[in-house]
């Protein structure tokens, strides 16, 4: 297995390199640019524009920009004052050495911008995934066991609704009901907060944190519960009709043991793959939930960077997201082989 992992990791390097070239080209070749907010005011003299282009590293040809983004410029002489003479070595180290550049908006390092928000997204989506699993798995199993029962039909209907409801609309409706309409009968205040991670200025309180999670988690998990429960139901239905399940029953094993030891564990295997593939969401964030519930996470950073053409931040989010996708695919394959003895590493 060690060899397999090493081989896959080595294969990931050229893949990431290709992805980085494609992402860099797509981001830079899209119409528009980061200086548009300046040019709107018309106060963009040629000198000012050239100065900003130099400060942002946009004055060089695209291939050179890519090499600097990748490998830095501390090994090459650069013109720092714009007089046309190379006067010192650059200071950029490049993403290969962990330097993702600085944000055009705040001039802060990209990794700092990401790190300020990543734990918040990790927190929100982690809890959402947990709740999703706790609800979707029992629903999926019961729907399969009690196929075409009232429970199954209800679950199926709700699942279709969950998948069909536009999540941004659902989020607003949740706020309207639980913040704008329903009040806490004791305090007289809104039943649940409209957004944010915690009450501003209040001391740490676990219940306060939980209250701030309820609505965004509900919005996020509705679609996921629908999807995962449907998937698990199909997977279970396939398995419970297989010969080895019939054999287990024929050997006199209890229905509970048959379902949970033999059927569920095997039905869970494809679900692990799905989970691993959804995991990178934790990095790129959940834009709608973060916008509607004022959640300070990666989704908003990604969105605002894209609209403002904040290339370094946008590329930082995208390339780390891409690396995570590749890594999670590898983990999914490993987990798959680990859980299913029929699959062998080759």
């Amino acid at each position, binding site marked *: 297995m060690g060899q397999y992992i090493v081989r896959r990791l080595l294969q990931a390097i050229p893949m990431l390199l290709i992805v980085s070239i494609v992402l860099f080209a797509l981001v830079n070749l899209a119409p528009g640019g980061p200086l548009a907010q300046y040019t*709107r005011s*018309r106060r963009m003299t040629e000198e000012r524009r050239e100065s900003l282009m130099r400060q942002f590293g946009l004055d060089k040809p695209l291939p050179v920009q890519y090499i600097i983004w990748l490998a830095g410029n501390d090994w090459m002489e650069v013109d720092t004052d714009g007089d046309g003479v190379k006067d010192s070595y650059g200071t950029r180290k490049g993403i290969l050495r962990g330097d993702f550049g600085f944000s055009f908006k705040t*001039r802060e390092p990209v990794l700092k911008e990401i790190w300020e928000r990543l734990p918040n997204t990790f927190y929100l989506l982690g809890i959402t995934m947990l709740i999703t699993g706790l609800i979707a798995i029992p629903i999926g199993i019961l729907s399969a066991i009690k196929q075409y029962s009232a429970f199954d039909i209800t679950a199926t209907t709700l699942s279709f609704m969950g998948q069909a409801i536009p999540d941004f609309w659902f989020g607003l409706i949740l706020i309207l009901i639980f913040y704008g309409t329903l009040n806490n009968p004791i305090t007289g205040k809104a039943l649940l907060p409209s957004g944010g991670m915690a009450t501003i200025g209040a001391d740490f309180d676990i219940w306060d*944190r939980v209250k701030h999670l309820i609505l965004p988690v509900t919005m996020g998990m509705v679609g996921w519960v629908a999807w995962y429960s449907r998937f698990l139901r199909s997977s279970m239905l396939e398995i419970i009709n297989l010969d080895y399940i019939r054999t287990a029953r024929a050997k006199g094993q209890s229905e509970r043991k048959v379902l949970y030891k033999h059927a569920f564990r095997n039905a869970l295997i494809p679900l692990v793959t799905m989970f691993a593939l959804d995991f990178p969401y934790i990095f790129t964030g959940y834009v709608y939930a973060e*916008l509607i519930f004022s959640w300070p996470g990666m989704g908003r950073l990604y969105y605002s960077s894209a609209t403002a053409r904040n290339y370094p931040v946008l590329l930082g989010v995208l390339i780390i997201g891409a690396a995570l996708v590749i890594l999670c695919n590898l983990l999914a394959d490993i987990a798959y082989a680990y859980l299913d003895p029929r699959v062998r590493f080759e």
Partner: protein
Amino acid sequence: MARLGKYKILTLMVTLFFVATFVIGCATQETVDEPPDQPVVDEPADEPADEPPAKTSITILIYANPAEFHGFNIGSGLEEAIGEMVMLSLAEIDPDGNFYPELATEIPTLENGGVVMDEETWVTTVTWHLRDDIYWEDGEQVNVDDVIFTWEAMQAAEVWTASADSIESLEKVDDFTLIVTYAWPEPEYVTTFGGENFFIYAEHFCDAEEGYWTWNCNSEPLSAGPYVLEEWVTDDHLTFVRNENYYEEGKPYIDEVIFMVVPEESVKRAIMDEGDADVHYWPAENHAISYQEEGNGTKWAVSPTDRWVMKLFFNTKAWGEEETPHAFLADKRVRHALRMAIDVDTIIEDIFLGFGKPVWTTFFRPPFNSCGIPRPEFDMAGAAALLKEAGWEDTDGDGVNECHGCLYAEEGDLMTAEYVIWSGYGETLEFAQQFIAEAWADIGLQTELSMLEDAVLWASPDEGGTELAGKFEIDMWDSGYSGVDPTGWLWDYFYYAEESEWNLANWTGEAAEEVGALIDELYTVDEDYRMEVFCDMALILEEELPYVELFSTLEQFGLSDRLQGVKPTTFDILTWNVADWTVTE
């Protein structure tokens, strides 16, 4: 390893992941360092323990995280608002357009000898006297060194400001006297070191090595203003508390001001309705009017004068061309006809819900609004007649005019154009675009409607930008100038347009040269003469009509009923007088 063992390991890993998730979420997120040492304040002697007054706090809802504490970088437009909380400048402008000193003792003028112009060389000196009773929050005195330090840091960072090109030197006479020498009379000298973008930074505190763009003062400013930044949680909120060292006795009146980031407009409205916030910053028109109508503990406030004017820009040249005239927009009769067909009052009342005022000249704001340019009439028949006179008429009955003796197109060419708006404004502008397009369709102009995001509309030509490349026909967005004096704004539009390598002149038309030639005349200390020049410009612009001014969009805010003293202004940012705000319970 047994299968059961594998599952146990997997279960353990998943459990650890979720535990880590929750632990991360529960971690506190303080981001602002400890405030600098406070000056020693004598503790009051043992006094009867009165009940301390309840802490007053207000919440301002903003749509995005401000980038930092200065207004010269790419930001959200909110940098100035938070800057006013903690920073000061030499002079500011009140809501009526009058200058008032802030760090300075008075406004330098010709009359009080603060402004002196050499009649031969035109070199002009401005002498500023600073107050000697203003301190930073750490107890250090604010002085001339801080002003010079700020200016030099900005120059080193290549920050461009309106007066940057005209300043020859800054000379410190003593700790509280500064002489600024301009190479020529600078009309906007009062706000060279003031206005909404400019703040004075503390020389002893800001890390000059790091420089203006990246120094610590951008995120952890040392305050000389009414408040001190206590906490900044990125993308979530900023909390400001009273600056006990503030120079105005007894102010600010409110103990705590929180800027809460809420991106979604309707959520902001819900929070205001619940009474959980006091200011809805820049609400959309439909929300703004509901603050007035519903009366459920809210009200709205607008600026007495306006800054942003919705304009139609015509490309007088063919799409993407520098010389070839546009088929019909190059003819000023067509431009006048298109203006005549727009019912501005209906747009204001029915689409912008009354949040606007008709505007028809660039010089619509005091003190330069006395040129007597008459308001054009809305006249569809007149517009059609003018188009016919210009050689554009629908003779085949398909609803689209053809060229019949027009100036710049082939006979029979159809009158069609692309009409672009800025997507960032919101749906009201979309409705206005459709309304205008329908009116134009009634007089035979067929338009193709589209929207572009900011980063494309205003990007430079080599970035794929449309407007600066002249790759548009008609577009509509709002524009305006800060401060009182439009000289710098006119310079940007007309003078610079002539010099630029970009196709700016496409949308300033023939007027660019004429107006540009008059701009040099504005650099004088003779205010009467300047007024004459502005009126000459107004006449040229009215005649040539390079762009159509439609209406001003008001600076509007939703407020809670309990919040008093808020005075929105076109000349500065909402928080310009935050020290005067009060709350009534």
